[in-house]
């Protein structure tokens, strides 16, 4: 295949990272890997600035955190010269790497880790420095781990604005390029504390936005608290939210969904009003009724429709994790999601028709797609 003809998927799994490649029609994907075999990968990045580079976090529970880099579109990966690490006198030790995003400079990368902190590399991942404005924020030692750990999973850059999603910490916003951050959670509910709307401490699962509408943000928050009868009372529909003011305030758009609990949230590449979520049963974190479906809104969350053509109709109890869904940028874009049962699905024509691409991979943590 020639350059500019390829759709590339990075698939981070419990047992390493895989790379899938197809021509633009996306009829058949070839699979390569696993790279970093046997080691969990929670984040990947397809960096399309200049010559494409692929990155993957290799989160080795025995020997520590590494960053893998591929300069040949996923035919092979090598470790960068070093991975992010806290200063020796900080007292914290890296547990996991949850997000990798491109920064401002051509070789600049940003990385969100567990325990929730932010690192920056200016040389393509060979050296890293901690970003103190959030990593040493006055709230940082008060954040609590969610079920997946105390992770910084979302980094969204928009000029001098930087949005961070932390579980469990909430949404933090910088308007000075990342020097300083403020908790920005007005309207973001919390379900596991007596105060339903604290300043910080929400269990944000994922935040997404459209490149051309930076003021509009969507959030999948930790929902499932409609029936709570304890202190603070019930808090329905806190799980799916929207902001129209660069994340300063948020409002619910969960009405019409079968559940406001879920992990990923993805925005259509050509329409900022079209957004996708995967509602899950809050108690089991699996598909409601054993029948998986992606739900789509085409009006910014005012109403929702179910997309399940081709997906199993019963007996499917997988989970789709926070970074395990993405959408390509082709004219008729396809959605992709990976499951905790190791299936990789493609939803053609914006999710109208689903097909299983790979059905026996290791449990999938992360799926990213790009056309290179």
């Amino acid at each position: 295949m020639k350059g500019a003809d390829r759709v590339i998927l990075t698939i981070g799994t419990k047992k390493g990272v895989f790379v899938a490649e197809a021509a633009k029609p996306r009829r058949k994907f070839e699979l390569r890997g696993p790279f970093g075999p046997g080691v969990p990968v929670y984040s990947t990045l397809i960096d399309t600035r200049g010559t494409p580079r692929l990155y993957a976090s290799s989160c080795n529970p025995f020997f520590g955190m590494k960053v893998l880099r591929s300069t040949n579109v996923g035919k092979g990966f090598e470790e960068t010269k070093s991975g992010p690490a806290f200063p020796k006198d900080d007292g914290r030790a890296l547990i996991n790497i949850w997000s990798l995003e491109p920064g401002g400079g051509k070789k600049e990368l940003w990385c969100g880790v567990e325990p929730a902190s932010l690192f920056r590399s200016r040389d393509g991942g060979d050296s890293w420095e901690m970003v103190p404005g959030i990593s040493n924020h006055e709230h940082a030692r008060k954040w609590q781990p969610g079920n997946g750990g105390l992770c910084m999973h979302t980094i969204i850059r928009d000029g001098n604005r930087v949005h961070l999603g932390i579980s469990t910490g909430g949404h933090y916003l910088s308007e000075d390029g990342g020097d300083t951050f403020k908790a920005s959670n007005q309207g973001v509910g919390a379900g596991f504390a007596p105060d339903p709307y604290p300043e910080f401490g929400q269990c944000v699962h994922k935040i997404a936005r459209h490149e051309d509408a930076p003021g509009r943000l969507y959030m999948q928050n930790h929902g499932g608290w409609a029936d709570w009868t304890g202190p603070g009372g019930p808090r329905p529909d806190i799980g799916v939210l929207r902001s129209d003011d660069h994340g300063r305030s948020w409002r619910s758009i969960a009405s019409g969904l079968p559940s406001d609990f879920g992990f990923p949230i993805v925005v259509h590449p050509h329409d900022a009003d079209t957004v996708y979520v995967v509602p899950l049963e809050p108690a089991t974190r699996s598909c409601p009724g054993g029948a998986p479906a992606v739900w789509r809104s085409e009006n910014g969350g005012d109403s929702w429709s179910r997309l399940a053509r081709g997906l199993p109709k019963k007996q499917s109890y997988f989970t789709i994790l926070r970074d395990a869904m993405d959408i390509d940028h082709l004219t008729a874009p396809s959605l992709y999601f990976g499951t905790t049962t190791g299936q990789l699905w493609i939803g053609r024509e914006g999710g109208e028709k689903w097909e299983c691409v790979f059905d026996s991979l290791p449990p999938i943590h992360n799926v990213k797609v790009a056309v290179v």
Partner: protein
Amino acid sequence: MGPAPTVTIHVYGQLREYCAGASQLSVSARTVRAALEDLERSQSALYRNLCDETGKVRRHLNVFVNTDNVRDLDGIDTTLTAGDVVTILPAVSGG
């Protein structure tokens, strides 16, 4: 006090790429802690695989002096004598 005893560090196979392929390293150290400090200076890439940023041996690793796990001795302050073999291995954990 005489010179520190020379001991052998046996390098787990998966980690040999971090010390130019060596399967064994010789260091002079009176304790396991001193041996690790030697590695931090002389084999920093290998060391980062064994200890986290705070200097603690990574949680899922076990350190043996000869056949004894140091947790049953004096931890990383376990004394070393000439000819000892220090082995650092992944614990039987993980999935």
